[in-house]
C-alpha cells in the first residue's frame, strides 16, 4: 500500500465501532484499488475520548471514529448538543436522513471550519436508548415515578428522567452491575445490544423500548492528513465512509433483531411504551431548551426532516 492511515476508537475489539471501522477499511481498500489501507487501533489503546480528539486535531492521529454525539466533547462541537434531545428522532431511519441532510452538512461545516478536522461521513448505526427496570413494567411516565434509574450524566437525560418522575443516578459503569444486583438502583438506560451483552438482565427483568435518543457513528480525519490527500484520494475516502454506512444498515437491523430475540431467553419482558405520554411530559423542558441549549427552531427543523 502507498498510504496507511491510523484509525483510533475507544470501543472494545468486538464492538459495533470496530465493525464499522473494518467496513470502512475494506471499502477504502476497494475504492483505492489497494493503494490505501487503514490500521485500526481499538480499545482506547491510543487514548481515551479526550486524547483521541486532541490527537486528531493536532495531526497526531489520522482518523477518529466515534458516536456523532461524542463531538460535543470538543467545545466547537456544541451545535450537536441538540442530537441528545429526547425524541428528536422518530426512528433510526430518521437519524440517517438527518446525517445525510444539508442541515447536518451545514452544522458540520461550522465545526470543520473552527477545528480543522474533516468529517468523512456516517459509517454506522447505534442502538436506540431503552429503559430497563427490576420489577416494574414501564408503559407510561407514571410507571417510573419513585424509581432510581442509572443514566448517563448528560443534562438532557437527567432532565428527562426527572420530568418522568424518576431520579437519575450517576453510578459508574464499573459499579452498575453491583448496584442493580443489590437493588441500589431500580433500573438503567442503555442500548438493547449492550443490555444483552453486559449481563444486566440478571437483575433487570423488564424492558421498555423507549427509543428516546438515537445516534450513529461518524468518522473524522485530521486537518493536515486531509489536506495532504489528492482530490482522487479525498473522493475514495468519502465514498468509503458512505459505503461503510450503507453496508452497515442491514447488519445493524440484524443485530437489533437478534438482541430483541435474545431477551426472551433471558426472561426479560418487553413493554411497549406510550411514547406520546413520555414526549408530552418533557415538552416544558424542550420548550425551555429551544433557543438556549440550541439555536431556536433547530429541534423542529431536524424533527421535520
Amino acid at each position, binding site marked *: 500500500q502507498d498510504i496507511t492511515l*491510523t484509525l483510533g476508537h475507544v470501543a472494545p475489539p468486538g464492538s459495533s465501532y470496530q465493525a464499522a471501522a473494518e467496513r470502512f477499511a475494506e471499502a477504502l481498500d476497494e475504492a483505492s484499488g489497494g493503494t490505501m489501507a487503514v*490500521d485500526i*487501533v481499538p*480499545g482506547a*489503546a*491510543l*487514548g*481515551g475520548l479526550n*486524547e483521541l480528539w*486532541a*490527537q486528531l486535531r*493536532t495531526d*497526531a492521529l489520522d482518523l477518529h471514529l466515534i458516536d456523532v454525539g461524542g463531538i460535543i466533547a470538543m467545545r466547537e462541537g456544541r451545535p450537536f448538543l441538540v442530537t441528545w434531545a429526547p425524541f428528536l428522532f422518530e426512528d433510526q431511519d430518521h437519524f440517517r436522513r438527518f446525517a445525510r441532510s444539508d442541515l447536518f452538512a451545514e452544522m458540520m461545516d461550522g465545526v470543520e471550519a473552527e477545528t480543522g478536522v474533516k468529517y468523512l461521513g456516517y459509517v454506522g448505526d447505534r442502538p436506540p436508548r431503552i429503559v430497563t427496570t427490576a420489577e416494574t413494567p414501564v408503559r407510561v411516565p407514571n410507571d417510573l415515578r419513585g424509581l432510581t434509574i442509572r443514566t448517563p450524566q448528560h443534562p438532557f437525560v437527567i432532565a428527562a428522567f426527572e420530568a418522568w418522575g424518576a431520579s437519575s443516578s450517576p453510578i*459508574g459503569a*464499573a*459499579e452498575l*452491575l*453491583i448496584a442493580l*444486583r*443489590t437493588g441500589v438502583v431500580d433500573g438503567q438506560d442503555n442500548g438493547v445490544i449492550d443490555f444483552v451483552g453486559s449481563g444486566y438482565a440478571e437483575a433487570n427483568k423488564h424492558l421498555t423500548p423507549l427509543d428516546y435518543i438515537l445516534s450513529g457513528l461518524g468518522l473524522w480525519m485530521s486537518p493536515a492528513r486531509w489536506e495532504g490527500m489528492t482530490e482522487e484520494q479525498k473522493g475514495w475516502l468519502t465514498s468509503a465512509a458512505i459505503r461503510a454506512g450503507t453496508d452497515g444498515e442491514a447488519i445493524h437491523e440484524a443485530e437489533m433483531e437478534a438482541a430483541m430475540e435474545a431477551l426472551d431467553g433471558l426472561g426479560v419482558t418487553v413493554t411497549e411504551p406510550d411514547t406520546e405520554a413520555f414526549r408530552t411530559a418533557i415538552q416544558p423542558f424542550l420548550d425551555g431548551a429551544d433557543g438556549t441549549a440550541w439555536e431556536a427552531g433547530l429541534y423542529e427543523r431536524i424533527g421535520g426532516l
Partner: protein
Amino acid sequence: MIEVGVTVAIMLALMVLRVPVFLAIGGAAGAFALLWAPILRGDVLAQSFLRGLDNQAFAAIPYFFAAGAIMNAGGMSARLLRLARALVAHVRGGLAHANVTASVVFAGISGSAVADAAAVGSVMIPAMERDGYPPAYAAAVTAASATIGLMIPPSIPMVIFALFTPADVTDLFVAGIVPGLMMGAVLLAASVVLARRRGYASHPWLGWGRVWGALKGSILALLMPVFVVAGLVGGVATVNEIGALAAIYAAVVTLGVYRDVTARQLLVALADAAADSAKILIVIAASGAFVWIAARVGLAREMAAVVSEAQLSPVVLLTIIAVTLLVLGTVLEPVTLLIVVAPVIAPVAVLAGIDVVQLGAVFVLASAIGLVTPPVGILLFMTAAQAGVPLLAVVREVAVFLAALVLLLAVVVAWPGATLGLGRLLGL
C-alpha cells in the same frame, strides 16, 4: 516488531544501568519517539503518561497498601504472630512453622509481599535466632513464605494484571486463594521435613487457653480477610470499594479498639503507604507509553500470528510463559514484570485458548517466585539484612523452598482446577 525489540532493549539496558524503572520505560519510549519520528510525538508521549494511569481501578493499589500499613503499625502484626506461635510452636521446628503460618494470615491482610516480610521478619527472625536456628535459615523461611502474600487476596500484582488484560480482578482474587493456601502447605511441609532432619527446637504446648487468648486478641484482624473475600464473592462492592473500606476498618480497629498507636503514628504509616504505592503508580503511568507504542505498531497482532503459526497447545504455551517469567523474574521484580510482559502476552495466550484467569494466577505466582531468586530478589535482600547475614547464605537456605514453589507452579500450569475450581464452585 523491530521497533518494539529495540525499544525494549533500550529499556532493559537503562534498567541494568540502575536507572529507576519508570525512567527506563519513559526514556525508552522517548528513544522510540526520536528513532522512529514522527510516529510518536512528544506531546502524545506526554498524553500517554496521563493515559497510563487513567483508570480509577488503579486506586485499589494505594487502598490495599494503606490497609496493610495501618494493620502493621497498629500492633495487629504482633497479635497475629502471637496466635501463630500459640498454635504451632510446640511442634519440632515450631517457630519456622509459625513463621509460615503467620505469612498465610498476613497474605489475607496485605497486598504486598515486601510489607509481609517486613512485619513477620522483624519479629520472627530474632526470635528464631534465639531458638538456635541459623539466621540464614530464618531469613530464608521468612522470604519464601512472604511470597504467599501475592497469591492470597488482596494482591496488588493481581490488580495490575487485571487492569492490563481482560481478566476480572474479582475472579483473579478468588483464583489465588487455593494456590495461595497450597503455597502455605508446601512450604510448611518443607519446613517440617527440614526441622526433623536438622533437629530444630520445639516449645512446650501452653494449652488451648493460650490459643483462645491469642485468638480473642487477634479476631478483629482475622476478620479483615474474611470481609474482603466475602465482599468480593457476594458481589456487594467493587474491589476498589473493598480496599477503601478495609483501610477504614483497619484504622477504626487500630485507633478505637487496640489503641497501640497514636493518630500521629498512624498518619506516618499512611504517608509511607502513599509513597510505596506511588512507587508502583508512577511505573504504571510511564507504561502508558509502551501500551501506546505496542498498539500503534500492532505488536499483539504480530505476536498472535507468530504463536498461531507455531500451533502450540495451551499447556505447552503456558509452560513456555511460566519458564520465561521465571527467567525474567530472576532480575525483574513482579510489578515491572507484570506491567512490561502481561499486556503483550495476555492477548496472544487468550487467543491460543488459555483461560485469562489461570494465566493471571501463573503470572503472579511465577513473578512472586522471582522475589526469592538471585541475583535480584527483593525479599532475599530484605531478610538477609534483617538477619544480618550474607545474601549467599540465604540463597543457599532458600533453595529447597524455591524448589517447592516451582513444583507448585508446575501444578498450577498443568491443572486449571487449582485456580478456576473455587470460582466455578462459587458460581462466579
